[in-house]
């Protein structure tokens, strides 16, 4: 109360003092935002309204009202009392706003759509939450208020609710063919619950008189299914640039007018009287949550055309440095559809990655991959979940737009300002995300710019850490550290966590600082190769006989079938009549379990994986006595000899208590309990299990299983005697460091064709029916298993982003002077990302053996390469240190950094991030049309649930944002 009084006194004092400061917006959980043209006084209804102007309306979800600010300068429209902002009362909890232009002749070119400048008030409607009521706001008299309400529930005949709403021109046939906007009319399209769409017309009462009131007109509600098909619920709208096609994002299955069924985006021809008969499915790869359409002049980065650049080329398909980048646009506009995929249906384990997909409407397919590699353009990755896609073209005037200097005719392009430096583009989009940021997408280059460089400096794509850990011997009372595992950067070198790999002959491994100086040619060749655009932010672990991801310490069952096969399944023990729980699909090759020959040396191709079995009681499965001097193990061990296809509960009758494993099981080479308590047919015992690789296994903290890198152990590995005879289970052999070291064996984790792998993997998607016959064709040793594992790894190594970072001007450096250690002499991109020889480096001898990146600026505008490439080796650190083998679970670990930080904007106050938790609405406004604000550019206005509105231009810097509160 005291604060209120103080505020009132301050306000009073300000008024007495002649302060003309505007009140704040006093937002209350803003839930929607819109820009409209109307007649209003900035000082509120007590003054005569000014000329037609643009305004921003914000729905105050917690206060049942709209707030209005001037779009020209973000100043709040005052209430008559002056100390408070104007409140336009609405129905309870206004949630959605929409605006439609009712054009007058001066705005209408013959046969066309409305063009700026707007010459008459727009129609502004508000939808209260949980209702299907459209409230029409007076935008023409200077007294904003709800003047008409229409309840679409009445039209439907039952209670419905509006999900989404958008304004559009009312179309009529044009004299010369095609369609044009009708004068003084417009429509709102509203998505209703129950798979319905409503078309609501608004009409200016007195045609041609801008000051005339607007009324609701005809209402047409139809099912989106039409023709008896089930409808789908729309969650987002987009319009084609000519407004004849409505694009609908939906998470539901679309059954279109031709009978096609699938998920994606629905296209509706809104010129048809019965538009339900025009529904067309656009398969974009999955269900969608947001959509937009745009005719875009794209940079044309097709392989083989890059040498048409008339400017100094730059590396990595960074298409240009300045306005010249517009060269190569076109040659014609492409009709593209942009859709944000439903995150539940995309991702690493799914046929398509998450993000914004681009669909070529003319080509009828997903946009081609400019790198010429993948089946289609990789979805443009947006952190969080995209809430909307709002494309825009360049501002009308001002310094954030210009014309291309060499194209004929010249194209208008706009400035875009990622943290890596200003550049220009033809079209861009703002994408608000659930993570509170608004991301900027360059639609002409088809990538998301980055706020930091992934090519240059310390933020580049790189490995930032390496460490090794040697596991304790489970059979020894003390810990032994006999062996190092490390990266083998070059033959006869081992790197465990040092910047300076040493020859193995010295048997000395430095453990100093990580990775040494950035510019250090001897330090980097061959260590761990990364590729910008493919290498993710990830923590990697390469472990000797490591537990397979997700298969460590799992509840499982150990049993014997009536047919005699001994098996282990990872699942909770089944209780008769119930389905098992926590089921791992052990049969799925994506998990990475390998069956094989137990007699082969550990790590050899074809060697069987290990299964550590911890019985609930040792009476179930007695342990073997330890070897002399050793302590008892706490588990029994088995090897994976094969796989058993899934077995589910019968369709009818009681589910048996044993022999049911819906995810499949691994078949063991022998009964691990045989010495003391052999399994009998039909037996099943509750155990805890870990499945470990026979050799090295690579895993990512987020990505999981990432393959089996080979390791250079110098010599062949004689197998240890089996545990039953006192041998040490799971240990490979005895590498002899006195012998000459073996060859370096690189492991390449790189994308390969998903299409080819999927064609040979009948397990994708995983059959829901355990009795599916496809399992029988995918047993151990079949090509099916290889294909399915390849497919799983390919999905984990997809392109993450397309490159658009800038390298220094290549020709600015003296040709042939680069020593590889002096950034003053070198294009630093060359240091990190060397090209295929011949190049001009003076010290090529030092670079012998360095990885050569397959991309260059001559013909491959987008690089391709491995997410990771490295070679592993192990060495005994000294004869006096005891252990003669690599202990199971010893590993090296390193982190990779993608270097990518998608360009975004967020609320900042005095340069400090403030609020901006969850966007609730976004709208775009070309403020350059406002006299005196020409250089403001195209503004995106974003409402946030935490009571603020973000106001920014993509052409301005990250810190140059406005916040309206």
């Amino acid at each position, binding site marked *: 109360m005291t604060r209120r009084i103080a505020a009132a006194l301050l306000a009073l004092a300000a008024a007495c003092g002649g302060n003309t400061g505007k009140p704040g917006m006093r937002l209350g959980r803003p839930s929607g935002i819109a820009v409209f043209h109307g007649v209003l006084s900035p000082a509120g209804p007590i003054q005569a309204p000014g000329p037609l102007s643009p305004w921003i309306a914000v729905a105050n979800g917690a206060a049942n009202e709209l707030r209005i600010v001037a779009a020209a300068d973000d100043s709040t429209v005052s209430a008559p009392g002056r100390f408070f902002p104007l409140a336009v009362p609405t129905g309870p909890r206004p949630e959605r706003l929409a605006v439609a232009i009712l054009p007058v002749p001066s705005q209408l070119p013959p046969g066309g759509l409305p063009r700026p400048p707007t010459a008459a008030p727009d129609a502004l409607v508000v939808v209260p939450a949980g209702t299907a009521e459209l409230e029409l706001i007076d935008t023409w008299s200077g007294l904003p208020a709800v003047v008409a309400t229409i309840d679409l529930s009445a039209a439907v005949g039952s209670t419905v609710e509006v999900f989404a709403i958008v304004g559009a021109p009312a179309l009529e046939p044009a004299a010369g063919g095609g369609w044009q906007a009708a004068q003084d009319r417009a429509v709102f399209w509203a998505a209703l619950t129950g798979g319905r769409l409503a078309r609501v017309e608004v009409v200016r009462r007195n045609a041609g008189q801008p000051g005339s009131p607007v009324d609701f007109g005809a209402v047409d509600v139809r099912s989106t299914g039409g023709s008896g098909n089930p409808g789908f619920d729309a969650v987002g709208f987009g319009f084609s640039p000519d407004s004849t096609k409505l694009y609908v994002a939906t998470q539901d299955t679309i059954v279109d007018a031709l009978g096609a069924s699938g998920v994606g985006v629905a296209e509706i021809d809104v010129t048809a009287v019965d538009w339900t008969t025009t529904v067309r499915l656009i398969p974009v790869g999955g269900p969608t949550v947001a959509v937009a359409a745009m005719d875009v002049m794209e940079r044309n980065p097709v392989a083989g055309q890059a040498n048409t650049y008339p400017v100094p080329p730059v590396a990595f398909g960074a298409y240009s440095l300045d306005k010249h980048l517009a060269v190569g646009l076109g040659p014609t506009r492409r009709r593209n559809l942009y859709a944000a995929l439903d995150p539940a249906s995309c991702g690493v384990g799914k046929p398509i990655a998450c993000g914004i997909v681009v669909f070529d409407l003319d080509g009828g397919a997903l946009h081609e991959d400019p790198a010429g590699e993948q089946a289609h353009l990789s979805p443009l990755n947006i952190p969080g979940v995209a809430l909307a896609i709002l494309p825009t073209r360049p501002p009308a005037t001002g310094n954030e737009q210009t014309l291309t200097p060499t194209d004929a005719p010249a194209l208008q392009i706009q400035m875009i300002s990622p943290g890596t430096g200003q550049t220009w583009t033809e079209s861009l989009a703002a994408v608000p995300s659930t993570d509170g940021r608004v991301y900027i997408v360059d639609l002409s280059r088809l990538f998301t710019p980055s706020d930091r460089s992934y090519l240059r400096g310390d933020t580049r794509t790189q490995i930032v850490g390496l460490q090794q850990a040697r596991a304790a011997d489970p059979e020894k009372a003390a810990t032994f550290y006999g062996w190092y595992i490390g990266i083998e950067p070059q033959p006869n070198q081992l790197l465990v966590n040092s910047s300076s790999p040493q020859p193995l002959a010295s048997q000395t491994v430095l453990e100093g600082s990580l990775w040494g100086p950035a510019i250090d040619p001897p330090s980097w060749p061959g260590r761990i190769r990364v590729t910008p655009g493919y290498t993710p932010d990830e923590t990697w672990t390469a472990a000797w006989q490591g537990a397979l991801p997700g298969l460590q310490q799992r509840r499982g069952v150990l049993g014997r079938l009536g047919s005699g096969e001994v098996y282990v399944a990872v699942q909770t023990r089944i209780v008769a009549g119930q389905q098992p729980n926590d089921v791992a699909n052990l049969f799925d090759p994506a998990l990475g379990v390998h069956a094989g020959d137990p007699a082969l040396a550990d790590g050899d191709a074809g060697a069987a994986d290990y299964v550590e079995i911890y019985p609930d009681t040792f009476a179930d499965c007695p342990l073997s006595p330890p070897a002399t001097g050793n302590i008892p193990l*706490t588990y029994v061990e088995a090897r994976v000899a094969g796989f058993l296809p899934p077995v589910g509960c019968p369709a009818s009758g009681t589910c048996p208590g044993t022999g049911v494993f819906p995810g499949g099981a691994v078949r063991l080479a022998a009964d691990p309990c045989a010495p003391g308590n052999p399994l009998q047919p039909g037996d099943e015992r509750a155990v805890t299990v870990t499945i470990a690789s026979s050799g090295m296994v690579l895993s990512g903290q987020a990505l999981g299983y990432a393959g089996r890198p080979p390791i250079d152990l110098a010599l062949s590995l004689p197998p240890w005697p089996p545990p039953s005879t006192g041998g040490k289970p799971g240990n490979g052999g005895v590498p002899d460091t006195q012998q000459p070291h073996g060859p370096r064996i690189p492991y390449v984790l790189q994308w390969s064709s998903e299409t080819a792998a999927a064609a040979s993997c009948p397990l994708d998607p995983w059959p829901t029916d355990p009795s599916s016959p496809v399992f029988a064709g995918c047993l151990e040793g079949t090509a099916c298993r290889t294909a399915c594992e390849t497919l799983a790894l390919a999905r984990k190594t997809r392109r993450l982003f397309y490159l658009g970072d800038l390298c220094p001007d290549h020709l600015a450096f003296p040709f042939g002077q680069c020593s590889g250690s002096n950034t003053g002499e070198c294009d630093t991109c060359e240091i990190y990302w060397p090209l295929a020889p011949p190049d001009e480096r003076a010290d090529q001898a030092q670079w012998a053996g360095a990885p050569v990146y397959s991309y260059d600026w001559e013909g491959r505008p987008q690089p391709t390469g491995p997410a990771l490439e490295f070679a592993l080796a192990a060495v005994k650190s000294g004869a006096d240190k005891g252990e003669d083998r690599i202990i199971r679970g010893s590993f090296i670990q390193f982190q990779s950094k993608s270097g990518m930080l998608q360009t975004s904007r967020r609320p900042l106050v005095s340069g400090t991030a403030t609020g901006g938790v969850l966007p609730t609405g976004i709208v775009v406004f070309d403020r350059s049309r406002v006299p005196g604000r020409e250089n403001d550019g195209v503004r995106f206005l974003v409402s946030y649930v935490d009571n603020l509105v973000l106001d920014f231009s993509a052409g301005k810097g990250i810190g140059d944002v406005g916040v309206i509160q």
Partner: protein
Amino acid sequence: MRHSPAPGGARSLRLRAVLAPVIALGLLGAGCSEVVHREAPPTDRLIYPTGIAAVPLQSGGSGLLVLSSNFDLLYDARTGGTAMSVALSTPRTTGLDVPLGPPEVVGDVLRVPSMGGPVTLALDPGLDPPGTARPGGCPGVGSDLALFTSRYTDELMVPTIEADGRLTCGSNCAVALPLQHSDPLGVAVKCAGGMARAYVGHMRASTDGEITEVVLASANDPELSPGEKARPVPWVRRSFRAGLGVYALAYQPERDRLWVTPDGTYANAPIGVVKLGVHCDPTDLDVYGLPCPRVDIAGDVFTWLRGAELRGLAFANPDANGNRNRLFVAVQLFDPDLALRVGGRPSFDVGAALVVLDVSETIAGNPVVSLARIVPLGMGAAQLRVLPPRAGKGDLVAVVSLTDGDLTLYDDDTGAVAKVFALSQGASDPSGFLPGLPQMGKQPYDLAVEQRDDAGTVYDWIYVTSFLSNTVQVVRLLPDAPSDAEIRYTIGRIP
């Protein structure tokens, strides 16, 4: 000892305004001499009501169990709270402005420790009315039990609900929790495979654990030794670590998993899950000698929604295939950048939301959640309940927002908010509230739901305790018309 009056509400500015004079008076009093209130609480009214449960009675009707928290410790701290069984048989008039009579109490009002939390039920199916299967069935418990914590005494209270709704408290009614000063709040019950266990979440992180397991029935529990089976129930079996304070818990019977939301996070918002089927030896170690059971992370809501602090959670009703694929979580939103700057959770909220998550499993069989939807809510959202299932439709979820005073009905079938009870709009208010009055009372704290017949029509009912108005608001709706939900009457307001 931390005694925030309401889940999540401790951080609300409004509540702080309430707390401030109390604390100040407390400090003043402590400075002179220790003030000890020995008065017994009145039993004809609700006093800062918190937990509530709709009880399907053995007799076939419904009752309402309402806790009074004695939040301001006006009455004796150890016995100043009350648990009362309120009859739902008599319809009441509506409107907070209408003076009403005292609650129609069934039996004696139980005196319980102060600072009671949300109420969970464990009903013995052997006591179900003939031909009826009551929700919340817990075979083996032998009687109908109500479970709630006292944050003042660090106890789990387990009174018995008699056939007619009366509450009784035997010698084992109060279970002392082993973690002192740990701020126990949420309770979940597992009744499966012969086991009947309660899991209590402690909001204060401790190396001794943040989840306590209490045995409610032992006769058929396969994990207990003969000696343990001989112990009189309930008794504390163990506490185990979650790594963070635990705010709320939900048991997923189909998967034998316990899901938890943490308390005290500011840089992440992990959804924790405990696989209760993991084998632990008697020393609570797993086969690797590590503490067991353990809490795994099924997802981090922060990656989708920065500034999220997880509060109450609830699973959807099982679908036709018996799957619960949806998890609903109330979240309070704070400024995440400010949190990073100050190194802790800011003391004020900037919003709230209902986060709708899809629950699935990795190919390795581990639970994982993905974001399905974010629905903005009134500030202070904390407790939520899923309404009874609707044939062929997604669930309705009711959420109370303590700071803004809202009750929000979210319809997962349409993916949108169907109804919000907030401030009265005056003349247009269908319940006749005066303008500006909070329709759910001031600071709605907790809620209970049930489905029951009223004059031949089956309705869903929602009961909301108002912490500051000392009332329970009763909301009725037809399951297929949630937007038409209406306040039927008010319980507890006295002249």
